[in-house]
């Protein structure tokens, strides 16, 4: 039963890749879509990794863009200064970016041991802003102008492989005893401690792992774009990722993937609306939250769907 499921997932992963491959290589897909493949995959990695903290560990953070930026800078700084062949350089860059971000994940995990809810949210927001303001004033990484001249050596295949690795690692962890410990902490810290779950270790672990993948996603982002600047990784970026997690469903990896795809493509599709785009995005955000969380509307929706499903 479980094996069958894994085979299906593997098949889906391969089919999706082949689909992308055909669309891109035959030129069927528009430039716009081709160009969006990597950003979509970056966002999937970010959303899924944030879901580990927000959805599975149950802690609210508003500083995910901070992890992403640290990783992006560390990894891209390496590629800018080392001129190795891309095959060697790129994997090292991803590891460096991921590890650097993981170190920051560890540092930011410390307050998470003491703080909860809104307080943790504001502290992580603060951490993100601190990172940004330090990057802004560091001339060796280009200051506010950003780090320029990054080799654009990644492509959609690299991005796809990284995304699949992220998905496999995170979902396998979630469906292991370690993931159960993380979820137990989310549901009830005191009970988790009473049955011997090492709360400190697993909280730290979730932060470190989540930061690691955010860092890798950051490197990918930088390698794809060729330039990174501190202003990109602001509070709004963190919110953008958080919105993907919340819309996709907390603790729902598939949901995060779908939400990341929709929310990356949506603004691009709304380009025709020009000036009204942000307005629509804001309205969509409010309405989607109302529809997914308002008791009356949720009930209405469920009733609608149950009837269609034949009264299950």
């Amino acid at each position, binding site marked *: 039963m479980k094996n069958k499921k894994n085979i299906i997932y593997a098949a889906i992963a391969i089919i999706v890749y082949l689909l992308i491959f055909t669309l891109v290589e035959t030129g069927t897909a528009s430039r716009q879509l081709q160009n969006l493949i990597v950003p979509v995959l970056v966002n999937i990695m970010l959303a899924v990794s944030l879901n580990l903290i927000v959805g599975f560990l149950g802690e609210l953070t508003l500083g995910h863009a901070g992890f992403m930026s640290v990783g992006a800078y560390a990894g891209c700084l390496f590629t800018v200064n080392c001129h190795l062949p891309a095959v060697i350089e790129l994997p090292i860059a991803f590891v460096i970016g991921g590890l650097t971000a993981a170190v920051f994940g560890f540092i930011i995990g410390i*307050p998470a041991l003491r703080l909860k809810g809104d307080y943790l949210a504001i502290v992580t927001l*603060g951490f993100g802003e601190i990172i940004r303001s330090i990057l802004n004033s560091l001339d060796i990484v280009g200051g506010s102008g950003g780090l320029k001249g990054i080799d654009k050596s990644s492509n959609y295949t690299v991005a796809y492989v990284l995304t699949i690795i992220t998905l496999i690692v995170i979902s396998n962890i979630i469906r292991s005893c370690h993931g159960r410990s993380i979820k137990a902490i989310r549901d009830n810290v005191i009970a988790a401690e009473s049955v011997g779950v090492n709360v400190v270790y697993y909280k730290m672990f979730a932060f470190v792992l989540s930061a690691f993948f955010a860092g890798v996603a950051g490197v990918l982002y930088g390698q794809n774009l060729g330039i990174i600047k501190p202003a990109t990784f602001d509070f709004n970026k963190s919110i953008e990722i958080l919105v993907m997690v919340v819309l996709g469903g*907390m603790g729902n990896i598939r949901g995060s993937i779908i939400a990341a795809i929709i929310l990356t493509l949506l603004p691009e599709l709304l380009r025709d609306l020009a000036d*009204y785009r*942000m307005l629509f995005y*804001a309205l969509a955000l*409010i309405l989607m*939250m109302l529809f997914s969380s308002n008791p009356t509307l949720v009930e209405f929706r469920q009733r609608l769907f149950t009837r269609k499903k034949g009264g299950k």
Partner: protein
Amino acid sequence: MDFIQQFINGLSLGSIYALIALGYTMVYGIAKMLNFAHGDVIMVGAYVLSMAAVKAGLSPAMSIVFPVVICMLSCTVLGVTIEKIAYRPLRNASPLAVLITAIGVSYFLQSVALLIFGSNQRKVESVIPKFSVTLGEIHLSGEAITTLGVTVIIMICLALFINFTKVGKAMRAVSEDKGAAQLMGVNVNSTISLTFAIGSFLAAIASILFVSSYGFVGPYSGAMPGIKAFVAAVLGGIGSIPGAMLGGIILGIIESMSKAYISTELADAIVFSVLIIVLLVKPTGILGRKRITKV
């Protein structure tokens, strides 16, 4: 001399933060939600003020009173409307859903302002009569004195209102336990509406004093002061009225002092570091109440 002037600069900046933080803390304390759109209500208030000031053409006294009243009315109505449309349906939803909605409202107000007023900042004439006090080399602007005075008065009024009136008691009851308050005959919905009305009224005052001090408003003018004030509220202990005041003033002084004596580039980093250190030492902020988890 410089030091005193810098201290005063910090104080005047801090009193603005404190004033905005009072609105945050008020809403958080009672409704238990982070109203991320608070800063943007201030922005809307500033635009309203600028339009009302232009259209007036009344006697000198009225030309001050009229825009101020219009600004207060529209902010209050806006706040209550936002609560009714966006927040009330999510009364029992997860705090995260409410937070995202609040962010949505914030984006909404910003983009509406952008569509109506364009991206350029707009000059708003101060409604506070121009005066300033000069002691030797120390300058104290009229706006700073007014802001500080108004903030202190508002803080005292709010504290009295919450602690000694019947409505205030109802608010505290809602804050402790919505369900129990309802059983005790408190109308939870109207109490929270009232909270938003007061919060937005405070936003109106903040917007009047903010534009009087700085003179300009743009679609994104509310965002940064909003975040800073939010930090101030958390620093002082969110939900605590004197805490918001204290947090705002401390934040303003730290910001000013670190710009003056450490580094202008890293001032924001220092402000946030102080916040993090304070919270690590005292997880509920300086004046926040300790919450005990009962096992």
